[in-house]
Structure formats: structure tokens, C-alpha cells
């Protein structure tokens, strides 16, 4: 076993983290009140899922219609590019701190702050996805008498699904990641384990990091599943 590159303390801290997830531990600062354990882990996980889903939903409600409209009309390319670039430049920590200071703490404000991160990738990718649909396909659809709305729904959106979902998955990654620092704005998520090391100890921090990583992967794989379900049969055949 001595050839194993993993030093023993790493395994020990991993063991501590797993123990923290399943059984409550004593803490130095809570006056005998136990912290961690499966109940608290589940509660904070659900909080983070709720906050992330709300923010993702809000981003979709804002970004999808604008992206679809601009993409269908083929206008506002510069706007879509600019908003995508601007979105990447926003520092998450400053955004959360600013929203908390400027408009106050709470779930609603945080949902808005997180949606600010989700809108740019969804809007830009929806625009690009719809806009790059072959003009010949659109003309053919128009030729057989489809209305503009039908063209969008039956031709452009199905063809743009992969690109649109690249945006949605990017938004989801940013939102779940930033929901981790939500405790700074008064909403307890799994990030509480990470940020408040003095309460939860090193095991709590590692447990939080593990749970956050798993949650992010679950979001990513679920969205990949939804994308697969929404991809039309014809397109699946083509790529197979």
C-alpha cells in the first residue's frame, strides 16, 4: 500500500466528510448543539435545488423569448454577442454582495441575482441556434404555407435544440455554482458548510464541497436527459 500516491491524511479527511454527511457532529461554537448529519444536509441540498431551479426558470422566462425573437428575425447579433461577453465578465462574489447590499437579502433577491448570470448564455445561444438554421429550410417551410410562428416552433426550434441547450447547461452550471455562496446573502444552501468553517469544521467544509459537486453533476446530467427527450427523432437518426 505504500506505493499509493494518496497520502493517508487525505483518506482520513474524506472519511470525516462522509461521516459528517450522515451523522451529526459536535461543534466548537454552537454550545453543544450538533451540526451536520443527513437531516441538515438534505435540508440545505433542497434549499440549493429550489433556489437554483427558480433562478434557472426566471432566466429561461426572460432569455428564451428574446433570443427566439431576435434569432427568428435575424436582428441584434451585436446585442446578443455583447450580452454574452458581458455576462462572463460579472464576478459572482461581487454580484451577490452588491445585490445583498443594494436591494437586500432573501430568496427573491438572490433569485434575481442568479438569473442575471443565467440570462446571457441562454439568450446568446438561443439567438445563435435559431439564426444559424439553414435559410433554405426556413424558405421551404414558408413555401408550404407555414406561419411565422409555425416555422419557429416546427422548424427552427427543433434544429436549434442542441445550441439552445448548450446555453441552458452553461446557465445551470453558473447558477448552481453561485447558489453555493448564497449564505452570504442570507439564504442557507450547501455553501454554508463551506463558508462557515468555524461552525462545521474541516469535515463539514469537505462534505459541503462534495455535495455541491454532486449536485452540479446531477443538474448537468438531468439537463442532458431533458435535451435528449426534446431532440426530434429525425435529428437523433442523423447524428447516430
Amino acid at each position, binding site marked *: 500500500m505504500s506505493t499509493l500516491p494518496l*497520502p493517508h*491524511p*487525505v483518506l482520513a*479527511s*474524506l472519511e470525516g466528510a462522509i461521516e459528517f454527511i450522515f451523522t451529526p457532529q459536535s461543534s466548537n461554537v454552537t454550545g453543544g448543539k450538533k451540526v451536520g448529519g443527513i437531516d441538515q444536509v438534505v435540508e440545505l441540498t433542497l434549499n440549493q435545488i429550489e433556489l437554483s431551479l427558480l433562478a434557472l426558470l426566471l432566466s429561461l422566462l426572460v432569455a428564451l423569448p428574446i433570443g427566439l425573437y431576435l434569432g427568428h428575425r435575424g436582428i441584434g*447579433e451585436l446585442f446578443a*454577442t455583447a450580452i454574452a*461577453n458581458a455576462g*462572463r*465578465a*460579472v*464576478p*459572482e*462574489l*461581487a*454580484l451577490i*454582495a*452588491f445585490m*445583498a*447590499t*443594494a436591494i437586500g437579502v432573501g430568496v427573491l433577491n438572490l433569485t434575481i441575482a442568479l438569473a442575471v448570470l443565467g440570462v446571457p448564455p441562454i439568450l446568446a445561444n438561443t439567438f*445563435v441556434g435559431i439564426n444559424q438554421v439553414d435559410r433554405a429550410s426556413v424558405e421551404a417551410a414558408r413555401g408550404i404555407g407555414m406561419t411565422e410562428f409555425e416555422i419557429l416552433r416546427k422548424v427552427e426550434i427543433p434544429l436549434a435544440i442542441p445550441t439552445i441547450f448548450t446555453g441552458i447547461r452553461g446557465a445551470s*452550471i453558473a447558477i*448552481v*455554482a*453561485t447558489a*453555493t*455562496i448564497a449564505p*452570504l446573502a442570507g439564504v442557507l444552501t450547501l*455553501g454554508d458548510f*463551506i*463558508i*462557515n*468553517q*468555524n*461552525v462545521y469544521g474541516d469535515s463539514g*467544509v*469537505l462534505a*459541503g*464541497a*462534495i455535495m*455541491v*459537486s454532486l449536485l*452540479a*453533476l446531477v443538474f*448537468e446530467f438531468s439537463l442532458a436527459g431533458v435535451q435528449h427527450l426534446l431532440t426530434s427523432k429525425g435529428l437523433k437518426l442523423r447524428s447516430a
Partner: protein
Amino acid sequence: MTSPALLAAVGEVGKGFVQERSSDTLPCQATDKLFCPDWAWEHLDRYGTPTVQHLELVVISVLLGFAVAFGLALLAHRRRWLQTPLLGVTGILFTIPSIAFFFLLLPITGRVRHTAIIALAIYTLQIIYRNTMTGLANVPESVKDAARGMGMTDRQILWQVELRLATPEIFAGLQIATVSTVAIATLAVFAGGGGLGKPLYEHISFGTNIVLSGGIAILMAIAFGVLLFGLQRRLTPWRRGATTI
């Protein structure tokens, strides 16, 4: 509640960081103002060290990420069967939030700047790898045929034809990765990595401080974006006039 360990980690900035220098002015922190220009102007120099640290974090981690991702892309270009697994692995690494990554690495690397740099570098892998692969895939087969016809070896074709034609995509990846890293590096404070996240996190409810730290980070991101765009235009003079996203 802020942990003592974290405060120790961010200790360089110290408790007096946002305190007033001139005692005769109304303390900015005591007011409800989101931004006090006077305070900002008077104390701007305090953001010098965090800005330089931030710059170092970004440059080192992006260079590291680029070296690894570019190497992986060249490898996958030669050995096609590696393409899908590499895309999957870098994708999973990209999905894990960087703040979680810091603390997953911490038991292995310890609370040092390396932890932040490794996590930030890993975050850039997917973006740079995917863009390099796209760029190489977009090179027309006819161009490669022509190069082959001129008697070029595979190695010559790669370095003198394919990579040059892929430059716009590679630079687009580098630009996206750098701009994102500037933003995400504000979280490096949690791993003891310093940077602009340090003043930001230590006085997280002081509006002027938030605007200053966040503002410097945004300006840095824009500067990198413009710099890389200019560099790409210089390296691909034949594309001048063509639009790129």
C-alpha cells in the same frame, strides 16, 4: 459569521483596510450610500496589491490551463479515439463549481495559492480544448489535400496549415476562458488565494468596497478581452474584415 481561519487566510489586507484615513469627513461606511466617490478616490491605492495578485492568479492559471488543454487537443487530433473521453472528462471538471473544487483539492494541496491556481486552470480546460478541436475540425479537407500535394509532412501540415487556420477559434476559446477566469478568481479568497476577492469578502456589506473590487475585476476582464481580440487580429491578418463572434 466569518470563520477565524478564513480571516487569517485573508489577513494580509487586515482589519483597517476600509477604515477612514481622514477623520474629519463623514465616515462613508456609516452612511447608506452605495458608493462614495471621495472614499474611493482617497483609498484607491489599497486595491493595488489585491489587483496585482488577481492578475497573477489569472495569468498563471490560464497559461497552465492553455498548455494542458492545447496539449490534450493535439493528442486527440492524432488519436481520434481520445476525443470523446477527453471531452467528457473536461466537461465533468468544468461542471464542478470552482468554490467546491478549491475545497476538494485542499486536503491534498493545503491552503495555499496553488490550490486556487489548479482549480482555476482546470476550469479553463474544457473551453480551450473544445475550441481548439472545433478550430482543427473546421479546416477544409481540400486545404489539407493541397498541402499534402505540395509535399508537406503531417507535422508540417499541423503546425503550418491546420493550427494557423484554427487560430481564430483557439483565440476565441482563450478569450472566453480568460474573461471567465477573471470573474471566478474573485472566489479564490476562499482557498487563501488572495486577489480582488479578498477586500471584497472581508467587507462584504460596504457598498463602495463592493463597487470598487467588482469594478476593477470587470475592467480587468474587459481589458483581457480587448487585448486577446487585438492579438487574434494581428495573428490572422487574412481574416481582417471578416466578422467573428
